[in-house]
């Protein structure tokens, strides 16, 4: 009984992770400009790969493997916002335009404020 429960949890984690990756890929293709695409790639994509890693840890069933999977998950969660922020900062500073119907751009006069 216990192994069926564990297998079900693993299967749900795997399907959830793959679904998040699919949502991220669809968002990457459907969203209008660079900055909105970054939302899809950095949030949903990170959750997708993190859930798949957690599925490995749950499926293995021993503590060291689960700890390594958890460490990998936290590593991705820590590094994805940094890389997305750096990339958005660089693109905005160089002057890649926002989508024409964007409501506000709080970084518009960033150079004047500092």
């Amino acid at each position, binding site marked *: 009984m216990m192994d069926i429960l564990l297998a079900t949890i693993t299967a749900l984690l795997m399907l959830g*992770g793959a679904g998040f990756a699919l949502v991220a890929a669809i968002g990457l293709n459907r969203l209008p400009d660079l900055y909105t695409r970054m939302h899809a790639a950095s949030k949903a994509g990170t959750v997708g*790969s993190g859930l*798949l890693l957690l599925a490995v840890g749950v499926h293995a069933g021993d503590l060291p493997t689960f700890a390594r*999977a958890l460490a990998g998950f936290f*590593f991705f969660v820590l590094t994805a916002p940094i890389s997305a922020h750096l990339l958005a900062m*660089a693109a905005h500073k*160089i002057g890649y335009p926002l989508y024409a119907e964007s409501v506000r751009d709080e970084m518009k006069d960033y150079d004047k404020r500092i």
Partner: protein
Amino acid sequence: MTTAEMIVSYAVWLALVVLCVSFLLTVWRVIRGPTLPDRVVALDMLTGIVIGFIALIAIRTGFSLYIDIAISLGLVGFLATVAFARFILSRGGRETPRPDMMKTFTASVPEPRRKSATRRPPGTGPAVRRKAKK
């Protein structure tokens, strides 16, 4: 084959198919992305999907050593994205909009330089001016 193994096996197959679809969609963004940062975002996403593939292969084969490979691939992907961001910052906005997609593939072939022959009227080149000074 017990029930638990069957559940995991079917879920792995389904997740592999879904990941394949999302991989192809992301590759399409890499090919089509109009600017360089678009392609870098898609490449970042691509490393995430490949990490997911590695995790699924780890479940399928039972080797937990694949987790270390996934973590190191995540580290490499993070460093690559940071390096690309620095490159975009130092390159400046020198990207020219391309009218159609085929020019993307032929852009690496350098065109012959004929600027000096067409723009300069005859008798005003640097060699002619040097002769006139003498």
